């Protein structure tokens, strides 16, 4: 069967199955198990209403449990066992094996570099773009343009930037912009992606380019939400535009800046495609997610691969706890 046909059938089955499940399970609940008639009518209605939320939730909870919650536990278990020994428990052997590898430390170091630079730069550029475009008439078009890379895949963006970093031998016309400018300024053509440690920064540029639009959209909405009076009061008091921006506006949107920062941090922790497509971790550009992929699917070392995945989880954990904490506070 052709996959596209299979896809259409799956859509029909999936959507039809969902509708059918919700409709019939509600029908059975109301008509068969707890019928809203007879002597127990009142009690039955109450009971049906106690069960109903779980009918609504069941498919989602099942999928979440199976596809996100269970794998966390399973990966933790895998990281503590040895696949070659039939899944025997080996304690922290995989972790210590991983820590003996220089490639792991390189990946960890690079991840921290990414964590320091990409969220900071994206947020800064996003804030700048938001503030500038909010003031001009063609601002929304400008916003679209800066926002556009969000729609481009990390792999597509890698191709785009690889063209920028391209190198031709000396004497030929350079087809990569970076080298063209470099040669025009009197330098010799460089193979940028092999220059340690600057190549890491060149990879980060790709993600900054993608994420700035996201930061801009969120921050621009936050800027517009600032009460006019605070800004007007500052103007009357004689503040200049820079003071208004840094002393009045930025403090008021600090919460949003933190949200943007953490959201981009999450993206950075999982960055994989860009490194895979541009250098595949060569020339000391490895990052954790690509290291993990290498271990799991190239050398089939599930133990160490899972250990690396757990390291990523560990790095995500503070943000996870912080988010959950905030939501609980909000709900109370």
């Amino acid at each position: 069967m052709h996959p596209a046909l299979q896809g259409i059938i799956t859509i029909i089955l999936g959507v039809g199955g969902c509708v059918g499940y919700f409709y019939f399970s509600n029908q059975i609940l109301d008509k068969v198990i707890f019928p809203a008639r007879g002597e127990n009518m009142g009690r039955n209605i109450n009971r049906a209403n106690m069960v109903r939320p779980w009918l609504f939730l069941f498919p989602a909870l099942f999928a979440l449990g199976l596809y996100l919650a269970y794998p966390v536990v399973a990966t933790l278990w895998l990281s503590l066992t040895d696949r070659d020994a039939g899944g025997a428990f080996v304690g922290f052997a995989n972790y210590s094996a991983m820590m003996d590898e220089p490639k792991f430390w390189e990946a960890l170091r690079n991840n921290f570099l990414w964590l320091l630079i990409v969220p900071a730069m994206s947020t800064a550029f996003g804030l700048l773009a938001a503030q500038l475009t909010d003031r001009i008439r063609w601002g929304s078009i400008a916003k679209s343009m800066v926002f556009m890379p969000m729609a481009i895949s990390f792999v597509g963006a890698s191709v785009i930037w690889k063209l920028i970093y391209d190198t031709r031998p000396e004497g030929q016309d350079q087809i990569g912009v970076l080298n063209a400018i470099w040669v025009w300024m009197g330098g010799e053509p460089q193979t940028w992606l092999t220059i340690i440690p600057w190549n890491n920064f060149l990879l980060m540029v790709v993600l900054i380019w993608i994420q700035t639009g996201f930061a801009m959209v969120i921050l621009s909405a936050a800027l517009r939400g600032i009460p006019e009076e605070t800004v007007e009061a500052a103007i009357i008091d004689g503040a200049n535009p820079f003071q208004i921006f840094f002393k009045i506006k930025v403090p008021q949107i600090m919460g949003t800046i933190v949200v943007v920062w953490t959201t981009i941090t999450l993206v950075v922790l999982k960055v994989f495609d860009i490194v895979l497509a541009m250098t595949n971790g060569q020339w000391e550009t490895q990052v954790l997610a690509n290291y993990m992929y290498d271990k799991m699917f190239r050398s089939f070392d599930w133990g160490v691969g899972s250990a690396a995945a757990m390291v990523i989880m560990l790095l995500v954990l503070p943000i996870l706890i912080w988010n959950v904490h905030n939501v609980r506070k909000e709900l109370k």
Partner: protein
Amino acid sequence: MSEVVGKKSSLVWAVHLSVVLLVAAWVFPTVGLFVSSFRTGDQIASSGWWSALSTQERQNPAIRISGDEVERDGMFVIEGDLFENSSVSVSAWGTSSRETEAYGPGDVADLGDGETLVLSEEGRFVLSGPESFEGERLPRIFSTVSSPPDFTLENYRNVLFSSTAAAGIGKSFINTLTVSIPATIIPILIAAFAAYALAWMDFPGRALLIAAVVGLLVVPLQLALIPLLQLHNDIGIGKGYLGTWLAHTGFGLPLAIYLLRNYMVGLPKDIIENARVDGATDFQIFVKIVLPLSFPALASFAIFQFLWTWNDLLVALVFLGTDDDTLVLTGRLVNLLGSRGGQWEILATSAFVSIAIPLIVFFSMQRYLVRGLLAGSVK
């Protein structure tokens, strides 16, 4: 406030200029790829894409002339066009690698033994001599030409429809579409019901479940790869589209539930409570009132999920596989980067084919995307 700033016109100009620079810097990389995808491989390899927009002077490598010989007025003549299918203008030419710019356009070069060669500005050459050229090696021409901007659709034809050179981008396009459409549609209904329960139904443990969804929102899907692949193998799904759809559904659900719940909570309470008083069941309220009112949020999520599944590499590599038959666009691009890293005409065109659909979706539905982003970033 803008009126106050408006008085300081130099600042306004600085703002405009900065935005122009910012936009230019952000658009420039994509434009480079776009322009390159309309150039031939030779053009891309010999000059930067930014020079393709204006008339260019370049030195051609030697071209050995060829053509059929005719006899005219006792002379043997070979005529032809040095640069077929392209309009260029010759500024200098030569017949030896030591003197590549010995002659101007229209000059007559004496090749000895009474043979002469003329190259016109348009690139037409006339080689004539008293004896037949048969069996003789014809001379080479080195030329310096300036060519106007010259674009071609050949790359797209090659990449999308030829089965040989471009290594199946057309097929991968179908594969990506096959992955992303069901993976976008299936989670929506599942999430919508759950979001309704979390927003409007009262039951013990609701707050805990919402917190759990927010927690799962940030779980890296890297953790899910091996356990789920094992699971799929155990229950007989193996690697394939079904497994990929299920995986995308699972990974997309937390965001879907979170987005939709946030939206549904904001719906007017009166409508829902009036309906309850009138005796509508939760199922009816959901289907007839909440679902239609939630359309903007549903659209937001659908766009997110579509962009995410279309652009995804990792899930497709792991759950669909790396076979030639099932490779998605992003996977194909990574392979091309490895195997045809130098062939920019194929690479640029393939990349543009892969980003065209997301860009169309992005520009036509930007409003919903922005709204979704604003609702979805955890506050």
